């Protein structure tokens, strides 16, 4: 527990980790711009942001889950199932507006299922969601029957490609989602309860916090955000493949941890999650543009996470400051 201070005082106030990530992002952009003539242009910036949308939404939900001392390793496949629902609606030439509702709805329903298993069933989150991962995967297989949904109509794509007041819809949705999650976390009793549970479930219980309600709600919120992510996925790729979302959960967890949220719960940073996702996507895009084979990209991500967490662990082993001693 090195950076105990929460980034809670304002929407844009930043802590040490968040500054480091911002600097890392900017540094990466500068290096890539120098290294590749094709890097620094508006088109590529849009590509990077566009590639971040789904992971940002899933990451916000994952931040809440980790902050609560929970986790959901099945969340990528939840996106897959929501995407199938959306894809089926579009494939049957259904209204894109119906498709728009279907994603969050399926996400919320599956969030309820996950919550029922983990919260009501009192199964540890890692175990429960690992089990559900298998179940959901099989469900994806059964629903698709080996037949991808591909070449879906572009009605939803066109709907989400519009701008409102000059702002692209995806950016608007991300900003709104961030604001809502931030408010819930830092300005409502729910957020306090969630952080208290993440700190210690037993103490939270003794404080009279409605444990079940808070934990249930968090899984549902994460599900809804993932459902929205599915909507963007289908709109962008117009395709639902069997392996959809297979890497999303781990990517999201990586970004969230990179952002400074404790995997042990009780401490989180939404801004850190956003910067963590952006850093991952900037690296993925930039490395390819400067000619590093994509084969090496997971290595870069892995080294980054180990490096950041290792640095923090190492700095915790340094002699305690007075402040830290007082808490020890």
């Amino acid at each position, binding site marked *: 527990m090195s950076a105990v201070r929460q980034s809670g005082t304002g929407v844009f106030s930043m802590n040490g980790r968040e500054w480091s990530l911002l600097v890392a992002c900017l540094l990466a952009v500068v290096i890539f711009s120098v290294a590749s003539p094709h890097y620094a242009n508006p088109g590529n910036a849009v590509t990077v942001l566009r590639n971040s949308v789904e992971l940002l939404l899933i990451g916000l939900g994952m931040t809440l889950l980790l902050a609560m001392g929970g986790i959901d390793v099945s969340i990528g496949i939840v996106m897959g199932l929501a995407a199938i629902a959306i894809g089926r609606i579009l494939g049957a030439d259904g209204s894109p507006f119906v498709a728009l509702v279907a994603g969050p709805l399926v996400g919320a329903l599956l969030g309820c299922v996950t919550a029922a298993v983990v919260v009501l069933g009192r199964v540890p989150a890692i175990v429960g969601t690992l089990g559900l991962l298998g179940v959901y995967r099989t469900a994806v297989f059964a629903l698709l029957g080996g037949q991808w949904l591909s*070449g879906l109509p572009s009605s939803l794509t066109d709907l989400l490609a519009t701008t409102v007041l000059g702002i692209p819809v995806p950016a608007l949705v991300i900003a709104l989602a961030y604001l809502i999650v931030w408010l819930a976390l830092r300005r409502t009793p729910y957020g306090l309860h969630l952080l208290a549970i993440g700190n210690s479930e037993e103490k939270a219980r003794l404080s009279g916090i409605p444990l079940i309600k808070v934990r249930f709600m968090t899984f549902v919120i994460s599900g809804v955000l993932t459902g929205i992510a599915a909507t963007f996925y289908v709109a962008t790729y117009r395709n639902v493949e069997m392996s959809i979302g297979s890497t999303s959960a781990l990517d999201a967890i990586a970004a969230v941890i990179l952002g400074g949220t404790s995997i042990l719960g009780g401490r989180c940073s939404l801004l850190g999650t956003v910067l963590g996702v952006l850093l991952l996507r900037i690296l993925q895009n930039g490395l390819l543009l400067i000619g590093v084979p994509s084969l090496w990209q997971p290595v870069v991500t892995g080294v980054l996470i180990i490096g950041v967490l290792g640095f923090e662990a190492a700095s915790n082993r340094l002699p305690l400051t007075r402040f830290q001693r007082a808490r020890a």
Partner: protein
Amino acid sequence: MLSQLRKVLAASALSLVAATAAHAADKHKVAFVPQLIGIPYFNAMEAGGNRAAKDLGVDFVYSGPVDTNPVDQLQIVQNLIDQGVEAVSVSVLDASSIAPVVESAKAKGIKLFTSDSDAPDSGRAVYVAQATDEGLGTTIIDELVKRVGEDATIGIVSGEATASNLNAWIGFMQKEAAAKYPKLKLLAPQFAGGTAERAAQISGDLMAANPDIKAIIAVASSTCPGVAQAIETAGKIGSVIGTGYCSPNTARSYLKSGAFGFTVLWDPEQLGYLTVWAGKQLIDGKSFEAENKIAGLDKPATYDAAKGILLLGPPAVFTKDNVDKFNF
């Protein structure tokens, strides 16, 4: 829990097989065990097998795992052997573990052979091959050069870097390009894993990094939709041709939109037919000719006695003109 479910499903599938097998005990029986049941590719092989069974007067048994699990597959093969099915063909999931099963088949005088996916050192009777790695690699390059000319930059997007068949195809592409088209520039292969999301991101980045790129090859079928979508999103239809080893169902809309110029694969229906024909030959104790004219197939099947490979013929090329004739 999942593997439990899988076993139950596999077992029920087997009992069904046993029941149908018992019905027509007088005819010769040829079985085919796919890697996975319920997907269009193997459904097409099953259809071809059924057509051959009718033409040749044998019973065709089709049974396989519900998930690509090598252990389940071996169990199904072993069960078919125990039931006394006279010829059993397998699309092998794990080449290293099938040898003991081949032994037990031999001990009972049952012909065990491979089809679609081989286990070369297992002692199998014959391998019924859809197309050679070389044929697939060279065909896609030759077809591309017909469309974009020799003086072109071409990107390669593969799936998992560990997939040996995909790597073999890439190897033959590179060999063909070096041997026949010295001016052709094949970019280093990129690996997208299994998701359309990542394939699209990589394709987008490839086009950004290489403004002169003329074509992108989707090596893994899971990367086909991503490559096509990226070309559509980038507005490069007409200036960049997508292609790959993609089934007609996956590629249909992209072939029609122009994002894909053509795709290369084989016809699994014909492969299923050839598999059952080969099984009948083995049961009858007849040997294969160097070239086998078979009434139910479009082209003669060639036999390589040294390697023990019965080859369906050169790969098929699907374009917007013929794609609607296929359903897999």
